[in-house]
């Protein structure tokens, strides 16, 4: 999970979180017993549909603003350490 979530955790942290999460999951397991046969899931509180915008351009940000918060930048682009793999 820590790798999927991309968080570097020490073995002690992993131990502690595993214990705490086990307790939370045990509590959360109550949902498993709920009578949900034939009940559809609710992802949104309200069932809105077709919220669309027109294909009209709006101003983009000034490039200086875009890169102002970048931890590192070069040639108008965001700079990162080497990427070792392809996108999955």
């Amino acid at each position, binding site marked *: 999970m820590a790798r*999927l979530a*991309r968080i570097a955790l020490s073995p002690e942290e992993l131990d502690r979180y595993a214990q705490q999460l086990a307790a939370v999951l045990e509590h959360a397991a109550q949902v498993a017993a709920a009578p949900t046969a034939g009940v559809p899931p609710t*992802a*949104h509180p309200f*069932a*809105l*549909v*077709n*919220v*669309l*915008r*027109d*294909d*009209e*351009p*709006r*101003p*983009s*940000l000034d*490039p200086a603003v*875009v*890169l102002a918060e970048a931890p590192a930048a*070069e*040639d*108008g*682009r*965001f*700079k*990162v*350490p*080497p*990427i*070792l*793999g*392809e*996108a*999955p």
Partner: protein
Amino acid sequence: MTPAGWEAVIGLEVHCELRTRTKLFCGCRNEFGAPPNTHVCPVCLGLPGSLPVLNRQAVELAMRIGLALGCRIEPSVFHRKNYFYPDMPKDYQISQYDEPICVEGALTLPDGSRVGIVRAHLEEDTGKTSHIGESGRIHGAGYALVDYNRAGVPLVEIVSAPDIRSAQQARAYVAELRGVLVATGASDGRMEEGSLRVDANVSVRRAGSDVLGTRCEVKNLNSLRSLVRALEHEVARQVGLLEAGQPVVQETRHFDEDRGVTVALRSKEEAFDYRYFPEPDLVALAPEPAWREAVAASQPPLPAARRQALAELFGAARLEGPRAEQAETVLELGLDALVRAAAEAGVDPALALARTANEAAAQAEAARQVDPGAYVALLRMEQEGRLSATQAKTVLAELLQHGGDPADIAERLGLVGLDRGALASVVAEVVAAHPEEWSRFCAGEEKLAGFFTGQVMRRTRGQADGKLVAAELATRRAAEAGAP
């Protein structure tokens, strides 16, 4: 070519960048080639607090694609596909998962074969990463630079059924699909700019078998040429493994353009857990019937119908041989309407198709802008012998470059062609000047036809149509032979 005794089973995933003015979820311009990070805003940069709002035109183009491929347009839901990669501003991609907008269609190829379409769905593109380092390759790169101009550009991913049986058929499928995408206005079709990107799922099996083999996914097929090369290599590689008694490993492979081979990226054992779940920042999409019908009613003619229309000009169900190739050229370049217009105005369809597939196609961009009336008029002048073939080509070049009236152009260039009467009198003059050669020609010395044509050309400074000269000579000889 697929090795004898084996059959390839190929399914293609084509990613098509939609030709909208703005991105899928924000108002930044969807434009190729701008300076880096100039078409970005809080939404497509994934800044904290920003939210997506769906572009109506992108939905409409997705529907157009679906309808063109005979798909059903279904209510759909956007999901988040979660994985970390620096070109993805939110570290998840908004895509459609188990409820895509278009499902179950098919594409019929020019050879009559049919490839099923499983689904076509909307999703957002990623940014662009450049690997900087000594080798310029991913491995050994010193660092990477990211440009998010492309992030959030609307894509439709079109997933075919595994109905394709050869690299050549795959090529035909992508070419036909590209024609459909361009015809619907959904795409500019430019593979070299990444507007269309193709991934292939490939397996092989013994010919006649209906068992599916282990498949590999081949990525980075960014031209029709690399598609064919990659698939031929991959099919041969898999056949080679199986013939050597080794298994094909399910994995993702990358086509190395320089070496012409596919190389393994990662095996499916490390398959990624994308943790798809419904995108809570967007609501469901359910195009109402009226919208769907309006889109369907305004669909432009698709390549298949236009191909059929060309064949019908020749009174054929389907064109074959060189004519079929010419037809594909004009269809691909979107010049078939010129051929039809000329034929409808009485121009010989063969002449119209040939001029369009050769001379007009050589300047396709200009030909798409040409006034069809002028183009048809020019072909009529050629057909009626008012211009020779050579002259017609000269006038056409001028017409494509600068426009204008073909008759005026011909006159300005001094290319006033000879009509049949004028030509006949020139031929008569030449015959009168060379009585001896004429007698020999009449007696059957055919090679003298060239001599007389040369003489006519000299007197007309090359403006006579060679075919018409030959015809005139023949007519004259027949008339003399028939005379008492």
